[in-house]
């Protein structure tokens, strides 16, 4: 899978983006969707860190390492995809050298790169816990030093990711040209900015919950104490409910005020098959409200299959939201004589997509195999590690 990914990415880099099915009208495709989604899911890292180190929710110590790795995986994957996505990767540094401070994308690029480094640093101590490395004394000292740092890092990380999660939302919120996506702002940022932060924060824990559950199923070991997952679920649920409310308010404002202001009655967007109003419903209720409620009802939360499926729903909900913001926005016509566009990724795009996913799975499973992702694992006595079965993971990722 990785090979295939590399090959198709290579094609796109060497022969140019004509390999993709994107075009002048559909300038963004699968990759941007991928970026937005994985970054949203990777948000678990910063938020758990935030809760653990800043708000001192000690229980989360059980998953923090795993969270960091997930974050790292997601972000590095996103950055990789972005590098393939741009037409002139050689000029990536222009953004830092000649930044346009008004652009959301600048904000995103800055934050993501900074945060990636933060994650790397956070990743180091986990690496250092590796048994063999522990024999080197100087590394031990280094690690000890790092541990003092980690609080700062968590703070910085939270700040950074708070921003870029937001700016990712802003990315489309500022598109005045697309009344479907355009939102009025609070302060300098459009409302989507805050919605994205919230939703990312909500989805993050769910995703960690999901992966933890998955891994423990696959490696059939108990990785964390039983109360941790429900806790994650509760956090996710609370944030989710907040998000749903905010989203609803925002949508109402948009339907009744923003969109008509731009000269487009909101119903028009949903007159295009297949994107009927159902998508709005799915986004807010089916994949928003319902899982939130499930996660908030203690009885259901304690049943692992309810818990897990609710978490899954949440993640899907976020993915759906990102899909709507990116692809549906571009698909909808703006000029009266535009057609409604359809787009299907070419195999090269899909290949790169899979490549990124594969890369993620690989890194995660290796970290799991050789590093100590779940500190409590050792306390809960278990048989020796079963080898990680990747395809199974990949399929469900």
């Amino acid at each position, binding site marked *: 899978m990785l090979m295939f990914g590399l090959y198709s990415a290579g094609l796109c880099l060497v022969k140019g983006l004509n390999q993709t099915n994107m075009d002048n009208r559909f300038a963004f495709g699968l990759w941007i969707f991928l970026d937005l989604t994985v970054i949203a899911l990777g948000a678990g890292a910063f938020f758990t860190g935030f809760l653990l180190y800043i708000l001192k929710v000690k229980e989360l110590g059980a998953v923090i390492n795993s969270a960091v790795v997930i974050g790292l995986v997601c972000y590095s994957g996103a950055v990789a995809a972005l590098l393939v996505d741009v037409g*002139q990767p*050689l*000029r990536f*540094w*222009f953004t830092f050298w000649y930044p346009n401070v008004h652009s959301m994308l600048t904000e995103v690029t800055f934050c993501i790169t900074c945060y990636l480094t933060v994650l790397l640093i956070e990743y180091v101590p986990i690496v250092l816990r590796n048994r063999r490395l522990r024999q080197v004394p100087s590394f031990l000292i280094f690690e000890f030093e790092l541990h003092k740092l980690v609080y700062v890092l968590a703070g910085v990380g939270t700040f950074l990711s708070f921003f870029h999660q937001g700016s990712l939302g802003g990315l489309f919120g500022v598109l005045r040209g697309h009344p479907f996506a355009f939102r009025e702002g609070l302060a300098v940022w459009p409302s989507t900015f805050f919605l994205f932060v919230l939703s990312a924060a909500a989805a993050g824990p769910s995703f960690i919950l999901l992966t933890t559950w998955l891994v423990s199923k696959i490696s059939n070991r108990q990785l964390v104490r039983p109360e941790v997952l429900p806790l994650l679920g509760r956090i996710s649920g609370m944030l989710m409910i907040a998000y749903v409310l905010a989203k609803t308010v925002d949508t109402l404002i948009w339907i009744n005020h923003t969109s008509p202001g731009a000269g487009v009655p909101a119903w028009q967007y949903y007159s295009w098959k297949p994107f009927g109003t159902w998508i709005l419903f799915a986004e807010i209720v089916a994949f928003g409200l319902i899982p939130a409620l499930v996660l908030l009802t203690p009885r259901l939360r304690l049943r692992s299959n309810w818990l897990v499926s609710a978490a899954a729903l949440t993640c899907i909900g976020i993915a759906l939201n990102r899909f709507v913001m990116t692809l549906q926005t571009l698909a909808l016509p703006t000029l009266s004589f535009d057609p409604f566009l359809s787009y299907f990724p070419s195999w090269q795009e899909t290949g790169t997509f899979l490549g990124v996913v594969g890369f993620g799975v690989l890194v995660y499973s290796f970290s799991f195999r050789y590093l100590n992702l779940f500190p409590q694992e050792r306390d809960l006595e278990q048989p020796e590690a079963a080898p990680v079965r990747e395809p199974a993971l990949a399929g469900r990722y």
Partner: protein
Amino acid sequence: MKATRRDLFKFAAGGATGLLLTPAPWRLVTDAALWSENWPGIPKPVRGELRTRFTHCALCPAGCAVKARCVGDQPISLIGLPGKPLCAFGLMGHQLPYHAGRVRQADADAVRAVIAKRAANETVAVLDLRPGRTASWTYRRAMAALPRGVYLAARSSVPAVNLDAVKIILSLGVPVLDGWGTPSNVQQARSHFRLIQAEPAESRTALLADQWLKIRPGTELELVEALATGRGGAGTGLNEKVIASVANELVQAGALFLAAEESPSVLELNRKLGAVGKTIVAQREAPVPRSWKPAPVTPINSVPERSIGVLLIDESAADSYVPWSKLEGKLAPDALVVTFASSQAGYGRQAKHLLPTAVYPESTGDIPPAIDSPLATFRLTTPLVAPPRGVVNPAQFIGGLAAIDAADALRERAGAIHAAGRGSVCTYADGRSIPVEDIQPDQFWKALNDGACWIDEPGGKLLPPVLRASTPAVVALNWEKRAARGPMPPLVSKLYQESNLRVRI
């Protein structure tokens, strides 16, 4: 002391840090980005002095005046004169020499020898796809000189249309607003004529016309009959009220009546409507040296079957094609077909030999008066680009067969025009118009070459054309139809491929 692995690490680390303090890495990053500005495959435009040159567009019989912007001698863009714009095709003309399908090499001498041998005792025929040029005269002279030479014209001489007098046009599928006549003239006249387009297809003209008669395919003549007699016409799919009103309109305004095909009934109706002599007038040609002794124009139908031994086709400036089926029968069993063309697109498939010709704007020649000019004109198309080595000039080649030196034919004709002393020459560079008698022959010749048009004086009433049954009332001339046969400049992709503005026919 021996270096351990850790020392090596330290060394490397030091190196890295040191390197960061030198320009090297930063310069490499910058250069990589700069390299992307001119990596292989991005051409560098040639710099040089900008000059302006004038010529006439030879792509269609309209022969619009062309103002070429050149870097050095290389034209980089073509544009019309103020008030006399070029069509989309004309604007791309300077790219034609570079189209992919172009044929460049052939052994002209061998072909010449073969033809010469057979010309002695076989019928040699020249098929001229754009009659009325000086080259056409050369062909006729050559055929007159050969023992058994025949001159075939793709179409019989066309009467001119006096657009100023036109009040209403009923067109049977003629693309009046899309490549017919001289675009600028049609555009100016458009304000004072009403256009009724009878056409089955939803053509550009049909949709831009004042009225569109959506008739059933192949019922054009039935419509004509119905309009003439006031009866029938049910087959056209129009209701008789419509037909009646149209017929009425035509009678009201002395109408010009266009038709795409040659047909006596169309002609008859035009005559009946009084269009002939008023809006349909004789096409006048510029004077010709008396010394030139031309062969008659033989209509293709009157050529006996299987009689032609050698058929020479001049496609170099084709404006109307004859279907191959029509020619095939006239050829002797072992006939030799030679076509003068720049690509295989036309008769190249049927011809035994294809002699490459120069394409506009490499070619030298003159353009017969446009269909919508009632006055005689004489306009040269002079090369903006030097033609590649190995191309053949059809006129000189065919003239050569009959020992006629056609190299100076154009100049001789210019001399004859000057000798006639009528009309005036309008130079494009300064937009002045000088009576011919006021300038010297060589000045006249020079002016023509630098971009000028000789126009006959308007004096005298417009003569009614001599019309045979075979005469098309007005021939449809359409670059798009022509383009379907010939090569197109690469940039037409903008019209056909990268926008849905036009569809290939």
